[in-house]
């Protein structure tokens, strides 16, 4: 009896949060979905139902949205791979019990504490594509160090410019990836490596056949987390390259056509597509993580 009353009180304690999240997450998603099926253009809401028209318009003859898709794909691949490679490499380097490990670890992660809005400006300067006497930023540094082969036009590179925008993103999140890998490496018992060494396995083979397979869950988690972040990339684009059509991303597109262009229907359609792609990545991951926890 007492217990039931307590449980009711417990439920009442979470109720405000349930209502808040219910409205601000699920209610608003529903509302945005409704807008995405509407003809709303201009200052005043117009919920006239137009079916999938806004979605179809995005996929048919919309050059900007095609650029968005291409850019998101290139950016995601470069960003996720860059973070995984750099993160795993630095985790392996730090897993040897070196002197100064905690210093290196803290230093590799600190970019995560700073906003893209702050660092984006610096990166814009560092990745300046100007050539000749106006050369600056990293190109100038490469020139001074005799590393001329590294000089390039960064985000101004035709077609692949967006790949260079992944550099600041890798800079910010590779430390986070490292921390995930480091936690994974620490969970592998030393006996496993010792036993393989006794059996005469080379360090490379131990890595290839024992460590790497055991790190697969970490790699998968990191891919999901980083992948969904890259879909949402917004601040980085605004701060580093501004609103350039060739370097457009869906989030920037949505923001501009909705709040500057007042094309609410199309803006809502883009954001619902973004949500669907995020959900495809995140929902299986959520269920998998939570089920594992119960076991």
């Amino acid at each position: 009896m007492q217990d039931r009353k307590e449980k009711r009180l417990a439920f009442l304690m979470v109720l405000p949060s349930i209502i808040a999240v219910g409205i601000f997450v699920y209610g608003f998603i529903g509302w945005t979905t409704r807008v995405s099926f509407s003809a709303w253009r201009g200052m005043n809401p117009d919920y006239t139902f137009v079916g999938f028209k806004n979605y179809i318009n995005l996929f048919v003859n919309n050059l900007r949205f095609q650029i968005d898709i291409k850019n998101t794909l290139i950016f995601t691949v470069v960003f996720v791979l860059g973070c995984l490679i750099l993160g795993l490499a630095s985790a392996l380097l730090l897993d040897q019990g070196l002197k100064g490990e905690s210093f290196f670890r803290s230093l590799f992660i600190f970019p995560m504490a700073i906003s893209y809005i702050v660092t984006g400006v610096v990166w814009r300067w560092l990745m300046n594509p100007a050539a000749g006497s106006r050369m600056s930023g990293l190109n100038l540094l490469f020139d001074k160090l005799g590393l001329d082969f590294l000089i390039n036009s960064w985000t101004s590179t035709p077609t692949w410019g967006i790949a260079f925008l992944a550099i600041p993103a890798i800079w910010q999140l590779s430390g986070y990836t490292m921390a995930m890998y480091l936690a994974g490496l620490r969970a592998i018992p030393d006996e496993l490596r010792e036993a393989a060494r006794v059996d005469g396995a080379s360090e490379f083979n131990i890595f290839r056949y024992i460590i790497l397979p055991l790190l697969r869950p970490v790699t998968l988690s990191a891919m999901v987390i980083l992948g969904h972040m890259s879909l949402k990339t917004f601040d980085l684009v605004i701060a580093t390259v501004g609103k350039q059509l060739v370097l457009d991303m869906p989030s920037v597109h949505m923001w501009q056509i909705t709040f500057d262009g007042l094309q609410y229907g199309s803006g809502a359609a883009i954001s619902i597509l973004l949500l669907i792609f995020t959900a495809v990545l995140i929902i299986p991951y959520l269920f998998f993580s939570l089920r594992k926890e119960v076991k």
Partner: protein
Amino acid sequence: MIRSRTRYWSYIPLVLLVIFYLIPIYIMVITGFKAGDEISVKTMWDLPKTMGVENYLKAFKQLAPNLLNSFKVVIPAAILSSILGSLNGYVLAKWKFKGADVIFTLILFGMFIPYQSVLIPLVQFMDSIGLYGSIPGLILVHIIYGIPITTLTFRNYYASIPNELVEAAKIDGADMLGIYRKILLPISIPSFVVVLIWQFTQAWNDFLFSVILTQPQNWTVTVALNNISGGQIIPWNLQMAASLLAALPTLLVYIFLGRYFLRGMMAGSLKG
């Protein structure tokens, strides 16, 4: 033998990585110290000749109202979403009602959504309740969208506390709120630090909500910085000084409380 030699060589890539992570900060700090006649593209990598702080003073003067706005938003938002997260976490870990796990999963999903998918209704809704453009409105938004991660962190922590502790307290006659207040709340202070720091950093670095939901006089520091940076009107040394000032609060939190920051960061990947 071989192992110790490879360990010695490891410092070379590590130092290269240190350089990679420090380059933007190096440029930001040295440029911020340079006097107006010193900023030229040719000498951008050189150390400043003098260590003038005028740029920092000037940048501070310009950004002071926005820094203040950021503090006004971030502090209450971090505190209130931590309190809510702690209450939710306690109930969802120790007083599971029917459907508690489903509710938890549904709340958790809120932390991964692209906020673009709620922006249009959010603006309309804030406008209709009279909070559009204001600081309290932005605080409310940060509290609500902070609930998923704070609930997650606290729930994971409370779930790791043995149930026997709660059962024993029940036998001693403690009720639900009493157990929370007298037993779980005191031992979860470190979790509070983790969550507070994480929420502080996230809200401080937020750009999307601030730029959409606040009017110019209420702009937080990220929005103000984005407005003055990147243009040709404001000299580089001043831009860099302003950037460093905007980063300073979260940077200091990281330097002094980094351990807790890392724990918050790992909670975000659902690894507890």
